[in-house]
């Protein structure tokens, strides 16, 4: 993910709330502290398929907004 970001592609990591700090720390370690982290509700495991879809629906506009910002 860090390499994609470094190559200039629009890149984002989707994570749930408790993993945000880990994601931020890893982005710094890999030299892309500005890597967008799109936060969705926790958890990802142990949820029904409609809840999985709800997570995707939560993430999608965040990513669309990011794409829009990057392409402007």
């Amino acid at each position, binding site marked *: 993910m860090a390499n994609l970001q470094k190559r200039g592609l629009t890149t984002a990591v989707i994570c749930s709330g*408790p*993993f945000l*700090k*880990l994601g931020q*720390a*890893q982005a710094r*370690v890999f030299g892309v502290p500005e890597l967008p982290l799109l936060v969705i509700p926790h958890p990802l495991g142990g949820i029904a398929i409609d809840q999985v879809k709800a997570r995707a629906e939560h993430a999608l506009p965040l990513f669309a907004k990011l794409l829009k910002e990057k392409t402007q």
Partner: protein
Amino acid sequence: MSNLAQMLQTAGSSIEADDDFDAINALMREKGWSDGLPIVPPTEARVAAMLAYCDRPFDQPIAKIAPRWGEATPLRLAANAVMAGCQPRYFPLYMLAIEAMCEEPLNLYGVQATTHLCAPLVIVNGPVARELDINCGHNAFGPGHQANASIGRAIRLALVNIGGAIPALGDMSTFGSPAKYSYLVAENEAESPWQPLHVDRGFPAEASAVTVIGAECPHNVNDHESLDGEGVLMTIAGTMGIAGSNDIYYQAQPLVIMGPEHAKAVAASFSKDDARRFLQQHAHLTVSKLSRDNIERRVRVTFKDRLANPRPDDLIYAVQRPEDLLIAVIGGAGKHSAFVPTFGATLPVTRALKTVDGRLAKSVEDFRRG
């Protein structure tokens, strides 16, 4: 570079503190350089004594420790070894354990950052285990022996202080584990009826070696009744088929620890390879032991070739192949063995103790400078 005084003149390589045990410990806790217990202050003199047993340049990383991918230089490791209460002669083995756990197959990033409660377990084999008095008998997993306790603790301090496995930041374990304070033992080679673990793993018997496993705590196997080896193996196998284990969904390589009395009973009628085959065949659970959702969402996906449409009495194996099972003999008297499940997405790594010129070390004194 191996001139400590010169290295400590570099900005950021040392920290000034009052010569006061409590003040230094308060400072360490404030910095987060701590496992929660008091540390031995890593003064220049103590770090220098530790590095007297290092034959590498003090500033050259021997590994990078995930998840921070911090550079594990001998200097940094020596400070952590002092903090943990290690004797200087432990240092070569400590460096070896760190190198081994940073090899790719172990997946230290996963082991450190996962929500699972695993920790790197280090099993020491060979003459250096005896030289350093690493406990392999009664209470091998603690407490009571300085080498086990302090080398294991030094590993954890390096994983936190260099690797960034800070709870709820770089270490996301749901529970953590007592094994995250210290998790190092030796194999009881003298009481084992079989060849040692490191020989199983392709190293010569005269080598000293560490085997590192991304492991849970040992789960006890009590069998005071079986009168033969097959009975003991059946009890061990029955303990291995666990519905909530990571291992059943991976081609994992978990560990069976046999107490010497169980090992002797098993060895009367089984070679070690025979025991491995028996355990692989008998350590399983039926699909009926899993929840409907686990069957639907995990079993049918993971085992799509064999269990795309599983029946309740179909078997899921604790270990996929006999050669994936590690067996070691550890402990003292008593009719007990133990099963040590793993993180699953990790493979054990074994590495021999060698001097900087690549020779197998006969003693930790081979690393002594001057």
